[in-house]
Each structure stands twice: as structure tokens, then as C-alpha cells.
């Protein structure tokens, strides 16, 4: 069990001593039970921090934002930034460091183990609450306990947990400066890639129709891209301006810019967007599942990323975010690579 007060005390102490300039963590939001990202700079606010089954967010996203902001100001980071990280989040931080987005010493990882559980999936929870909204959610061993106007509702975690957590192989932030909770790596709540396997068993050779249906539903709000710590490119194929514009950029360059993807949310454009994103995440996605959670129209985006992840795992034994010094999937090769074209 994780004692929330320990996390708060750590944050308070480190901020007070100036060991970190900010602690990025979770606090209670203003809509029901849901946690929201918190950026604590004042030690007195450390008690705002929470840890509960609604701490969905992969906060490493904000490390990217911070880095971009510092670069914009041309400032050195100074003291490191503290961040509360679950297993998947910590692996994202590792990938970002593999890609030299920031240095190890710029980040102080306050790891939190998901132990035997993970985060709740609101879509799975809703039917259990009979239309009531939960005002609070806590971990209680293998159960989640929700407070509603009807009273307390205790649910086995695995019934309402997000698929990403059920299938998580490493619910522990191996890369950390400090960690709360036990390492329960190897707990098996569901087999790895279970949702992907379910989908593949069901599809019945009708994959094109399945994906056409979902690609047609995408509204191109780009929440999946925006919420993803790996989608940090300054130039994204979907944006109206796909290269940095400066005062030196000529009118002709701007007028003749390549538009890889039109803004219309039509099938061809949506496919190009979502498939491009899936390809760019191969070997980088740590399955935090935030893209699928954020999607307002329930496009099963995670299946695409999982597919890439499984390919990399089966073909090359590759585990994204395993170690900072480790190879990246697409920038390394094996002497015993299964494909002869590369040897």
C-alpha cells in the first residue's frame, strides 16, 4: 500500500530545500472524483497532491512542454523538475531520455508502483454506478472503493480497471530516484496484448471494415496526439504549417508547403493521420493508453500501438523504455536480425 502522506512529505521537503523547482503530480480536480495534473512549486501546496485510481495522466508529457518552454526562453533548467510517475510513465521518461530530449539529471522521478492495480476506466465504471457519479475513489488492496450519493461502492479492481493496466507487464517504475510501493512485476491480471488478441479473434477477416468504421468516426481533434508524450515534434504532418516559419521564410515556401494531410476529417485523411502516428510510435510507445482514454469518440487507437509493440517484441525482443542506454527500435540493428535484407 502506498501512503499518500509520504508522497506529499517528499514533495514538500524537496521543494523547501530547492532540490526540485516544481513537482508535477496529481491533485483532485473540480469534476467529481477525477484527479488532474498538478504543478506544485510552493511547498505549502504539497498537501494538494493525491494518489488514487483516477491518476490516469502520463505526466511525462509536461516534461516535454517544460523543455520546449525553457528552450523558448533560452534558459537553463537549474534545479531538476520532480515528477510523479507510474511504471508506464517512467518508461516514457526513459524513451524521452534515449532520444536525448532531456538529461537524466534534469528530472527527479518520484516513482509510484501500481502494485496489484492500476487506473480505472471510466467507461467500464459507468454501468456499475447506475447513473450516479462517484465523488471519491481510493485504492484498497485489490479493490477500488468509490463514494457515491448512494453510498460506498466496492468493486474488484480488475472489473473496472483500464485494459492497459490489466495487461501491464511491468507496473513498476524501474527508473526512479525514489519509489513508493512494492515491485509487483509479474503480477498477471490479464495476459499481455489481451485486447489485441480479442480483436484479432473477432475480426473474422473483416479488418478493413472494422477500421474503416472507426477511421470514419475520428473527428480529428488530435487529442491522441496532444496527450502523447512521444508526439513532441515541432512539425507534425497534420498541421497546416508543417515546418517552422521564421521571418526568413519566403512567401513562396509558405504557399508551396507540402500538405501531407488535408484538414477534412474524411476516411483517407484520418487513416493517413492515425497510421502515421502509429508508425511513428513503434518502439517508443510504452502503452500508457492515454490516447485511447482521451479519445472523445472511442476510437480503439490502443490496438494500433499494441500491434506495433507486439511486432517489435516478437521479432526483436524489444521492450520500449527498458533502459536509458539501451538501443532504440528503429535506430539499431541486430547481427542476428531475422530479415536478411538488413545484414
Amino acid at each position, binding site marked *: 500500500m502506498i501512503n499518500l502522506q509520504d508522497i506529499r512529505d517528499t514533495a514538500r521537503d524537496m521543494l523547501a530545500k530547492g532540490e526540485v523547482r516544481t513537482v508535477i503530480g496529481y491533485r483532485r*480536480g473540480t*469534476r467529481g472524483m477525477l484527479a488532474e495534473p498538478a504543478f506544485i512549486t510552493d511547498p505549502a501546496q504539497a498537501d494538494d497532491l493525491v494518489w488514487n485510481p483516477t491518476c490516469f495522466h502520463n505526466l511525462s508529457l509536461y516534461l516535454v512542454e517544460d523543455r520546449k518552454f525553457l528552450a523558448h526562453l533560452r534558459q537553463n533548467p537549474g534545479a531538476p523538475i520532480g515528477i510523479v510517475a507510474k511504471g508506464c510513465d517512467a518508461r516514457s521518461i526513459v524513451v524521452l531520455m534515449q532520444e536525448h530530449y532531456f538529461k537524466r539529471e534534469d528530472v527527479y522521478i518520484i516513482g509510484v508502483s501500481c502494485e496489484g492495480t492500476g487506473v480505472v476506466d471510466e467507461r467500464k465504471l459507468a454501468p456499475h454506478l447506475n447513473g450516479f457519479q462517484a465523488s471519491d475513489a481510493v485504492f484498497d488492496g485489490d479493490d477500488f472503493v468509490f463514494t457515491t450519493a448512494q453510498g460506498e461502492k466496492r468493486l474488484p479492481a480488475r472489473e473496472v480497471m483500464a485494459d492497459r493496466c490489466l495487461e501491464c507487464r511491468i507496473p513498476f517504475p524501474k527508473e526512479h530516484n525514489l519509489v513508493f510501493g512494492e515491485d509487483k512485476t509479474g503480477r498477471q491480471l490479464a495476459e499481455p496484448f489481451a485486447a489485441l488478441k480479442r480483436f484479432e479473434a473477432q475480426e473474422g477477416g473483416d479488418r478493413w471494415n472494422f477500421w474503416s468504421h472507426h477511421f470514419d468516426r475520428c473527428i480529428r481533434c*488530435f487529442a491522441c496526439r*496532444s496527450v502523447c508524450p512521444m508526439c513532441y515534434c515541432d512539425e507534425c504532418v497534420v498541421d497546416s*504549417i508543417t515546418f517552422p516559419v521564421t521571418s526568413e521564410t519566403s*512567401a513562396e515556401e509558405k504557399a508551396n508547403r507540402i500538405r501531407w494531410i488535408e484538414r477534412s476529417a474524411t476516411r483517407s485523411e484520418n487513416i493517413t493521420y492515425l497510421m502515421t502516428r502509429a508508425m511513428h510510435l513503434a518502439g517508443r510507445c510504452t502503452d500508457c493508453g492515454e490516447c485511447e482514454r482521451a479519445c472523445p469518440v472511442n476510437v480503439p487507437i490502443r490496438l494500433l500501438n499494441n500491434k506495433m509493440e507486439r511486432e517489435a517484441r516478437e521479432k526483436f525482443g524489444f521492450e520500449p523504455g527498458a533502459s536509458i542506454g539501451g538501443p532504440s527500435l528503429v535506430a539499431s540493428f541486430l547481427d542476428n536480425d531475422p530479415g536478411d535484407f538488413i545484414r
Partner: protein
Amino acid sequence: MEKILEKKRIDDWIKALSDWEVHAPALQDGIWTYQPVSGAIRLDHPNTNQSPKGFAFPQREIFFSFEQIKGEPPKLKQVLPKTPQHAVFGVRPCDGRGVPRMDKVFNDHVEDPYYNARRKNVAYVGLACNKPPSPNCFCLSVGGSPVSTDGLDVQLTDMGDRYFVKAITEAGKALMKAADGMFSDPSAAEQKQLKQVHAEAVAHPQRKVNDPDGAPAKLKANFNSPLWEEMARACIGCGICTFLCPTCHCFDINDEVQNKAPLKGQRVRTWDNCQFPDFTMHSSGHNPRENTGARLRQRVNHKFQYFHENFGMHQCTGCGRCITGCPVGIDIVTVVNKVTEHAG
């Protein structure tokens, strides 16, 4: 025109609407969306995932097509939408109130022929909210009500085994007349019951914008407040809040070229979004709304200040979609309250 319809006859009514293309909320892929009706409908939806604004303002609208053979003048052909008459069932009062707001935007100063061509063929059959369909509802704070008929052509009120059906406009009367025999006149007891159901609906607690009347002046006074950046710190710059909103109407216009030589393509309007970083990007590379704070301020001030200054009403209708949908907890009720309370 006020009538009573037995609930079990609603599908018969819809069948009688052969001159209309009928849409109603359906649960598909885990979300409620407006779908063309085929078979029985159910009007027990919380609120739809997206607002019904797309019936008059679709995410993609073709303005005209163009063709040019090298050396010859270009040929343009306007493409005005030719839509059948639509009847949209199950529209919640907040979304109903979105309709006159969109009408203003697309008809003030300039009349938008594309919007109007669609709009004139849509009738909205509303459903009063006997209880708030979302925990983030706040229609009462923004001049609305769970029993508002603003923007609707017909209002349905669920009274157990019957609907109380009220025509609000001529288009609404036409929908009811298409199935004249199915309706009966309300008794005095049913009139009384309607009043009671409506009174109970209005009495349900909702989330609250504390000072909606003072908001325009206070938002204006707080334009440069550091609160904006602080409140937008977690904003990821996605388009959920505005794309799901019943009154957000910003758009982009692009030429989509299908063929370079001979040149052939279409000019299209698509939804755009003030939360995207490149929304205000100038061609010089300068971006006047360069951070998430400035962009959040634009969204909130547009709803609660600028629109109010232009049209004398809040643009926000309190549906709560932007709150429910935000992946990082940005909550327009909290934001407006914080800013208005900050000004004291």
C-alpha cells in the same frame, strides 16, 4: 399546439414522417450519437457525445469546385448543399439554445448561404431534462433551463408512459400534423402533471457559475491576469472542448487539390479550433496567442464576454461537454468562477 402521445407510439409517429429524414440519439461504440433512425428509437440518452450543430454546420462543407486547363481561365462551380428535410429527435434544451446562437453567428452582417441552406431544412424535436443528464450540467447558470424551448421546433416532456408534445414553431406543427391521429388533447390533469414535472426538473441541483451576469465585465478586467496561464497549465491543446461544443463555430478554409494538371479540386470549409496552437499563427511565424493561457482565455472570454458584448447573451449554453471531455480536467465552470471571484 399541445398534445399527448403515448410513448409506445413514438415509433409510429416517426414512421409517419416520410417527408423527413429522421435522426435520433443511438448508443454506438460506447457513445451516444445522432444516427439516422431505422427501427425503434429510445429517448433515454444522457446527452449525445457531440452536439447536433453538425446538421447545419457540418465538420466539412464544400463551397465550390474548381478546374483549370493550363492557359485557360479557371472554371468555378458553387456547390450549395441540397439536403432533405431533417427532423432531429431527442435534442436537449442546452443544444436547442445553441441553435439561435449559431443562427446569429452565420447571419449577422453576412448571411452564410451554406449554413442557411442546411438550417432551413432542420427541425429540432427537443426532450426536456427531467433530471440533469450529466453531472457537469449548468444550463440554469447561463440563462437556460432544463425545460427551455429556445431553438426547438417541438418539445417533448417525458411523463412516464406518455410524452407531452408541444409545438413551438410552424415547422414543429408540421411534424405533428403529419401524424395527426396519433395525438390526443391533454387533460387538465396532464397539464397539471406537466407543470409539476417541469418544476421538479428546474429544482434539480446543477453545477453553478456563481456570477454569470458579472462575468463579461470581470473577464474583461482580468484579461491580463496571471490566472489564465496557471489554469491552462495542464491544457494539451487538443480540440475536444470546441469540437463537442454546441456553439463553437470557428472554421478554416482550404483548397483541396485532387489533380495538379489539369488542375482540379474543391474549396472546403472545415471546423477549426482556437485551442490548436496554429489557429492564430500568422504567415510571418508570429503567433499572437502563443501559449495555452491565451488560448484558454480566448475560449472562455468568447463564451462569456465577447459574445455577450455582441449579442447580449452568453454563448455558452451549459451542456458541460467541454468539462466532461477534457482529458486533463479543465473545467469552464471553475475557470469562470475563479476569474470572476478574483476580480472580487
